[in-house]
């Protein structure tokens, strides 16, 4: 209990109390307090337990750089946010916050035993220790490690909030509303252009909020900005990333600062701002110092203590020692002392101190120890004292204190500069990387540009200490529990690049992305390697600047709006008739139509029986469709597809096979020639957009001399497949103007006429092996025509069938599904479709590749049929196939099962597979090892039913 509320000062409203709870205990603060300042004022020093060792941790910083004091804020079911930084959480009435990573409580953490055994948890420990046996990782080590190490818990219930999103455009965007940012905004606004000024804090002002001398100016500037029509000021808004061409994404927090009952509207709003010029005024973050005990609660940044005192009216201790290597520590100490915060001593590693600072400190009755360093801090849950020594190695001297402030110099906040690929240069006087060159219209101002007077100082890694490095418990990365000696160990084990050292030690890889640890880690690596910092390299900052909610990223794109769900015009009929759906690409398709208590197998068996014995009706509207029109349409298709098209007569259909230039199958479909210059193409459901894009590519860029027009007509036509021996009887009463007799309308023909009075393109085609028609009608008439066909079908006992039955029926015939029986490495010959390749054609897309050495080499995987020896065994699709089940593991896999179903028609299972040299293995027995048993199957041609095709011609 050492922090306390100062009698006056700060920007808090002392007339308005706020009550809240922390770890279940009632607490209070003032309006304007952060969770950190309110608790510090109550004497709370302990805020969290560290990630790996569960060491007690207090507050380090006063802003988003805070690595230790992570809290979970609970705003009701589904509204629990972990890993918030206590200094950035404003208090409001009813705020419910809890500390993290402790069990059972913050003061008594049983897992802190890790700390006692910390010698066994060095860098790379997990990688080295938990390697073997492999199975134990998943079952034993990982669950334990996850329990022991970690941050807050993820919410487990659905987030009920909604999130807004918007685009904005402006001439000038300024990120960071400290004095430099505000000055830049006023300057830009005077030019008349649109100006955005955004800042992550509760109010604008940045560093000026901690400097009462600037408050009058700040109030004036804030009012001036508010009065300008061309200026938009957004506070509580974090610029999370800079993307190409000055596209900045920022998240505005709209309601989290309000009591739950007063929070209406969206929780956050994601701004996507395109700016002519971006000005980064993101300031600088003070660097901690690395010494033994620098993580004891009560050790914090000097600048943080200054902010707590001057902005929030809170003293962080009653006897405070400052450990500085930089002038700014002295200035902060003097400002704190003047504000009534008791500073007892300033320790500085430098022997030569600016006389003006030294004199001022003496005048303020502060003891000064130039040339000294803190060598240890006593206390466990709070600072109880510090030991100092001349140059870190002299005789130890104890200082009585309850808080230690660190002033290690400043690191400019160049994160967004780096997102934009701006280069950095090492500045010796700052001991930090400063912005150098960029190709964007982007500049830095103020402290993040190095243009700020913090005074001067040393750039040090580990403070000099009596203990050797490998015994030191000085921390570099507080959030990931990385010690100076871990970096030493990484170097000793051969790591040289900072990118490798970072990943091995996890320095800078926690949720704070190393805002306070990167430079210290770099400096220590540089010292250990005896090479300049500039040769060690620098890790790359990536968005987001601070952790960001998924909600804001998604905006409105969730649930039904996550992605479009495409439905055919017949979809609602299917829904009314109890269809079970599956999603195919973005389409919702009826998978099967269960009756009564039928499961899928029973429904599919019945649907298959009806199609084979009478008739079935199927909604095929999702097929991709392209209208190809123009004098050169036939020539164009002839070049695109493997098949010959020029000879196809109007009124006829052809199965088309489309290859990539690499010779592998990428799509197929039946297409019809309606007139010499007009084709109705169909593609696979999922391939429609891709095929159209590919055709446009060739048409526009390779064969722009061809006079052809391509139009996507997928959604213009409803397609109703009527399949089965009674198919003609079903549609006959409805069709006008088309002679349906087998002689006048043979298989693979197309006719135009009307059905139910609606224009139709009637295809006589079959994906089932039965007599079949596909009725194309304009989409808006699809439902009406479907119902008429259904009414006729019912007279014949018709079944509506779904995609599952469609799959079984086509597999019985050995028809492939592109993407299921092919995988992007399958040629027409591999798939047994060599007949579809026009041998006399001089060229088509992919033809040259079919003569490549690897394509004509023997032993390629070929599509074959498989019949399991046990007719009731249904193979698993994707299962691997071997020739000899008795060979040692790992076995030589010669192929895999691509399609497998139970065929009611045949009373047994059937399968297709891609098998090396498959067509030379006819009659062979192959083996499919599965958990618990090995299934044997015989190879045959992939054709299980009506091989002569007589049923097609009914």
């Amino acid at each position: 209990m050492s922090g306390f509320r100062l009698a006056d000062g700060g920007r808090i409203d002392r007339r308005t109390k706020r009550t809240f709870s922390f770890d279940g205990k009632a607490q209070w603060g003032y309006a304007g307090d952060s969770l950190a300042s309110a608790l510090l004022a109550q004497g709370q020093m302990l805020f969290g337990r560290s990630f790996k060792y569960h060491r007690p941790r207090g507050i380090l910083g006063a802003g988003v750089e805070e690595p230790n004091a992570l809290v979970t804020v609970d705003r009701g079911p589904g509204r629990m946010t972990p890993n918030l930084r206590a200094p950035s959480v404003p208090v409001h009435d009813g705020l419910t916050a809890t500390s993290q990573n402790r069990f059972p409580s913050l003061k008594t953490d049983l897992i802190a035993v890790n700390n006692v055994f910390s010698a066994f948890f060095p860098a790379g420990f997990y990688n080295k220790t938990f390697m073997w046996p492999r199975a134990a990782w998943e079952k034993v080590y990982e669950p334990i490690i996850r329990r022991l190490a970690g941050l807050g818990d993820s919410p487990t219930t659905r987030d009920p909030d909604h999130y807004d999103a918007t685009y904005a455009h402006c001439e000038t965007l300024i990120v960071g509303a400290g004095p430099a940012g505000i000055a830049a905004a006023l300057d830009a606004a005077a030019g008349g252009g649109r100006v955005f000024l955004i800042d992550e804090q509760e109010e604008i002002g940045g560093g000026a909020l901690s400097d009462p001398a600037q408050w009058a100016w700040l109030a004036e500037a804030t009012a001036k900005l508010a009065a300008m029509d061309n200026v938009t000021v957004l506070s509580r808004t974090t610029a999370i990333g800079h993307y190409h061409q000055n596209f900045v994404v920022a998240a505005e927090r709209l309601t989290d600062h309000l009591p739950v009952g007063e929070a209406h509207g969206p929780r956050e709003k994601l701004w996507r701002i395109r700016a002519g010029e971006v000005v980064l005024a993101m300031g600088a973050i003070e660097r901690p110092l690395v010494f033994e005990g620098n993580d004891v609660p009560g050790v914090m940044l000097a600048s943080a203590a200054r902010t707590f005192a001057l902005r929030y009216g809170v003293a962080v201790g009653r006897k405070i020692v400052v450990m500085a290597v930089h002038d700014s520590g002295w200035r902060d100490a003097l400002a704190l002392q003047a504000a009534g915060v008791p500073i007892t001593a300033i320790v500085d590693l430098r022997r030569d101190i600016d006389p003006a600072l030294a004199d001022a400190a003496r005048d303020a009755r502060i003891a000064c120890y130039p040339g000294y360093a803190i060598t240890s801090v006593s206390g466990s849950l709070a600072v109880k004292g510090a030991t100092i020594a001349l140059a870190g190695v002299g005789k130890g001297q104890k200082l009585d204190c309850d808080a230690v402030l660190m002033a290690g110099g400043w690191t400019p906040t160049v994160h967004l500069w780096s997102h934009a690929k701006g280069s950095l240069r090492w500045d010796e006087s700052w001991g930090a990387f400063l912005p150098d060159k960029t190709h964007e219209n982007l500049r830095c101002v103020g402290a993040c540009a190095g243009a700020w007077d913090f005074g001067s100082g040393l750039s040090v890694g580990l403070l000099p200490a009596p203990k050797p490095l490998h015994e030191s418990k000085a921390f570099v990365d507080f959030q990931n529990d990385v010690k100076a000696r871990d970096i030493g160990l990484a170097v000793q084990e051969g790591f040289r690049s900072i990118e490798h050292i970072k990943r091995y030690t996890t320095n800078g890889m926690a949720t704070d992305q190393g805002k306070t640890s990167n430079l210290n880690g770099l400096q220590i690596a540089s010292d250990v390697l005896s090479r300049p910092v500039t040769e060690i390299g620098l890790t790359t900052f990536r968005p987001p600047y601070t952790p960001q909610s998924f909600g804001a990223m998604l905006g409105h794109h969730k649930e039904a709006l996550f992605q479009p769900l495409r439905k055919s015009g017949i979809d609602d009929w299917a829904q009314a008739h109890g269809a079970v759906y599956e999603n195919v690409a973005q389409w919702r398709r009826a998978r099967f139509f269960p009756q009564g208590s039928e499961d899928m197998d029973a429904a599919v068996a019945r649907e298959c029986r009806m199609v084979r014995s009478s008739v079935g009706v199927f909604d095929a509207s999702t097929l991709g469709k392209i209208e190809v029109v123009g004098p050169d349409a036939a020539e164009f298709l002839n070049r695109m597809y493997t098949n010959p098209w020029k000879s196809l007569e109007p009124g006829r259909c052809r199965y088309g096979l489309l290859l990539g230039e690499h010779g592998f199958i990428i799509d197929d479909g039946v297409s019809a020639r309606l007139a010499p210059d007009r084709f109705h193409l169909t593609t696979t459901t999922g391939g429609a957009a891709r095929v159209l894009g590919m055709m446009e590519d060739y048409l526009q860029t390779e064969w722009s001399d061809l006079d052809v027009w391509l139009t996507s007509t997928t959604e213009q036509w409803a397609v109703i497949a009527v399949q089965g021996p009674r198919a003609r009887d079903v549609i006959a009463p409805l069709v006008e103007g088309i002679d349906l007799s087998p002689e006048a309308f043979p298989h693979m023909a197309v006719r135009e006429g009307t059905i139910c009075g609606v224009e139709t393109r009637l295809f006589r085609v079959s994906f089932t092996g039965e007599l079949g028609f596909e009725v194309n009608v304009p989409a808006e008439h699809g439902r009406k025509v479907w119902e008429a066909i259904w009414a006729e079908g019912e007279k014949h006992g018709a079944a509506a069938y779904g995609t599952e039955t469609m799959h079984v029926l086509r597999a019985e015939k050995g028809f492939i599904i592109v993407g299921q029986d092919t995988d992007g490495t399958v040629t027409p010959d591999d798939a047994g479709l060599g007949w579809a390749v026009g041998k006399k054609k001089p060229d088509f897309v992919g033809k040259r590749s079919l003569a490549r050495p690897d394509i004509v080499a023997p032993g390629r995987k070929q599509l074959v049929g498989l019949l399991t020896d046990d007719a009731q065994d249904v193979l698993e699709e994707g299962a691997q196939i071997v020739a000899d089940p008795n060979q040692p593991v790992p076995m030589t896999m010669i192929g895999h099962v691509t399609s497998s179903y139970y065929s009611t028609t045949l009373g047994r299972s059937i399968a297709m597979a891609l098998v090396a040299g498959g067509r030379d293995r006819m009659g062979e027995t192959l083996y499919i090892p599965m958990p618990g048993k090995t299934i044997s199957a015989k190879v045959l041609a992939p054709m299980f039913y009506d091989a002569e095709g007589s049923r097609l011609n009914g």
Partner: protein
Amino acid sequence: MLLIHCPYCEEARPEVEFVYGGEAHIARPLDPSTYSDGEWEEFLYIRSNPRGRHHERWRHTHGCGRFFNAVRDTVTDVFETTYKAGEARK
């Protein structure tokens, strides 16, 4: 997000309206059957992959639908220029 100038629409539009189309100025041979296996491999798979100026194809898919060419710096992602399909390499 990149802003890309479509030479057909004559307007800079956001990247989401476009799809990338690979390296530009790789013409499909008029008669691929005259290509040796090595030449065909070169055509199919071998790309220049430069550090710096890169000639590449884009398609304004969610706009005019046209393919065009661009010169983009692969280090900075800055577009130097865009030009219509069929125009000489820039």
